[in-house]
């Protein structure tokens, strides 16, 4: 239950698991950045960005986020990192 002293080197599998979690942590920040890009676009009537382009960009980012998240969750399950705890 208590924190065991972490070993210096990890097995390959746990190492992969931890890097996966690192990626998982970065993902929302990446999403935030990508979705902040529209802030840079010119706005108003004379805007050069059409709504269809905006739709393609924003939903493209969305699709990427979903796929990346799905991939992480798939590999996370395989890595067997203990995420879940059933009622007990």
């Amino acid at each position, binding site marked *: *239950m208590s924190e065991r002293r972490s070993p210096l080197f990890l097995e390959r599998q746990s190492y992969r698991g931890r890097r996966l979690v690192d990626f998982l942590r970065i993902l*929302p920040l990446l999403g935030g950045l990508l979705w902040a890009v529209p802030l840079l676009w010119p706005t*108003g009537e004379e805007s050069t960005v059409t709504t*269809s382009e905006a739709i393609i960009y*924003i939903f493209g980012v969305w699709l990427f986020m979903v796929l990346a998240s799905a991939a*992480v969750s798939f590999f996370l399950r395989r890595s067997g990192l203990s995420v*879940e705890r059933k009622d007990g």
Partner: protein
Amino acid sequence: MATMNILVAVCFVYVAFLFFVAFAAERAARQGRSGWLRSPMVYTLSLSIYCTAWTFYGAVGYAARSGMEYLTIYIGPTLVMIGWWWGLRKLVRIGRTQRVTSIADLISSRYGKSNLLAIGVTVLAVIGTTPYIALQLQSVTLSFSVFADAADKSGGMTDMDSTALLVAMGLALFTILFGTRNLDVNERHHGVVIAIAVEAIVKLFALLAVGAFVVWGVVGGVGEMMARIDASDIGHWQMRGDRWASLIFLSAAAFLCLPRMFQVMVVENDDEGHLRTASWAFPAYLMVMSLFVVPIAVTGLDLLPEGSNPDLFVLTLPLAMGKEGLAMLSFIGGFSSATSMVIVAALALSTMVSNHIVMPIWLSVTGGGASVSGDVRNVVITSRRFSIAGVVVLGYLYFRVSGGGTALASIGLVSFAGVAQLLPVLLGGVFWRGATRTGAFVGLSVGFVVWTYSLLLPSFGPDAVLSTQILDQGPFGWSWLRPQAFFGIEGLDPLVHAILWSISLNGLSFVLASMVGFPTPLERLQGAQFVNVYEHSTTPQSWSGNAAQSEDLMIMSQRILGAREAQTLFEREAKRQGVSGYLPDTTPDFLQALERALSGSVGTATAHAMIGQIVGGASVSVEDLLAVADETAQMMEYSSRLEAKSDEQARTARQLRQANEKLQQISVQKDAFLSQVSHELRTPMTSIRAFSEILRDSERLSESEQVKYASIIHDEALRLTRLLDDLLDLSVLENGQVNLNIQSGQLGRLLDHAIASALTGSGAEGFVIHRDSVLEAVRLTTDLDRLSQVFINLISNAQKYCDADVPELAIRVSPRDDRIVIDFVDNGSGISKEDQAVIFEKFARVGAMRAGGAGLGLAICREIMARLGGSVSYLPGQGGAAFRVILPTSQAMAAQ
């Protein structure tokens, strides 16, 4: 036109279908087939109550008015879900380890189980949610009116208010039926969750159908659609950057703080692994939900007449194209979104209102907390039902009074900003050990006041609550305090202005007040448990509970959890401690477990207070403070190892002590047994000898005297035979040489027979027996004669030993899994704790040998029940002497 009637009929069929689904799910869960009910997909779909009617109808209207801004409402939650490893995982873990019942419960529990704080959060949540419920009712009535207008020519107009009222009543009924079925929130609401999962599919399907119809049916393909979008009024990117950023933040905050989201996300979660699936599946759901919004908006603006309400395009567009079936589907989709939101919101709010406002008031009014008489469980359920009805009625009243606002989205955002005030306190509590109760109070109050003043009141329009003069010049002419331009900073969008100031002032004052004050030990302890939940999710917050009486605790928890759950809990805890029976020692561990179990029913603060009342006050032990102060890995590991060892030793010692006591008692009993047997044998022998000598030696005995003496000899001989029979019976049973005579029969009839045999000729007038013939209609296949012997013994014991003025005996039968439980409870003074341990031993008799049995009855009963594959035991805490007979119903018995 029959559309209106069809619509009403479809509505009823749909609602009936939902009831059926919920009912079937509850049934499946009760029968233990709940596996598929709890798949990650169901969890993900249940999260979709985020998409209310505001999404279904309002998003299109929003897009028609402000272009792409509507996307912010879905991007925020997407980021939260994708970042689940940061925040949600921790919230869910805390929710599960602390058995949190609502967001108010979580916050109150984190800040030292403060009920005042819980009340504050509850009030804020109710204020923030009521307009939202009104919004759902409004959207349903509006969509009705669309069909009614179409049917108007034939005079099929319906009354809008009565529609809303009907909908509200139906929703309240559904929530009460499936939301308050079980009290312990950890048992979770399977029916409700499945119903909203189904609704999630329905609304997604409906919106996709309309979208696909518009893109491919009306416009003719994606390319054409894109061209039309670019040619429309919203064809160019026009966005206020401040609104884009702050709305994404706002929706993310609301997603975490909305009571209904907290309910499905944390409270109803029963496997943290589900988050992993939801982390991508829910963003995908949101993406698909918002995909067709712009196409529908643009097409609606193009094709529908000027001035038609864009909030209803999803409905009016198919209708205008003559697709009534599609319009109907879309109506059902909107109906789904509205109903699922109201159901869960009412459920979440009612838990908060009942646990944090009604229950504390009720407890203080009735005067005695845990020691009051009566069934607390019923009070909790009743108060929860009334709270549900109250919340829905409040929403309905708001709808009536406001008369149905203009744009759906604006109420939604005001409401979002209100609940977002919980964010600093929530995040601070979960990530920062230094956050204190005072800080939380100050932060929440400041946030609430600023939100009310700068957003809620102005949202009613100028001169509604705040006069135009105050809006323009500030109160008392203080221009730096203008509601929409604090400190003279003008030009900000009013919403952005309100979010910026309320959240930042809220957070700032929360942090500052936390740093200035000093927390109580309980706050620090809870803080450590919340913030470091992954390290010591099992470290209990301690009770020093040696003075507590387990029996009192049992009486109290039976009232709250129900007799069966409480007995199971106590039995399990006793077993864990290595003690037999139903009464565990009141160790801190046990009290901790009990408090968690109770808090699932009445909330943390109340449970803590109730146990505190019996135990005599909580205290924080030195070990706990050490755990907070010093957490180096070695220290923790060392102490935990020691703790485990000492726990084990304590357990062994307890067992040894118990065994030793029992041995001593048995040895005393054995001596007593021998002298008892000699005594019992000798008394009749003496009189037999004496009277037979008289008969032999006396010459002149009258006829009647002879008969009298002979019958005395006969009686005494009978007594001897009975005693020897009993002894023999017992030894046969104990050696397992008995042959069982298996027959089938009715339990009720067996009890009739037993009562008749036990009470005939025993002078038992006025001995009342309560029974329930319906429950007794059970067929048994067992040795009926032996079982009847047990019943006769228990009944005649009750009749002999019950010392009440009006003796009564209740026989309660309850089926339980594959066993039948039969309780015999009388209203006498019961059996003392010392005697409870020995009554099943041979020749054990309680108190003075008033009734003069040999003390073999219960020993024989125990042996018989063991042979029949069941058991008989003493059940403490029932108000009198109570014996519990447990019998297997299935054939699989100890086949001797």
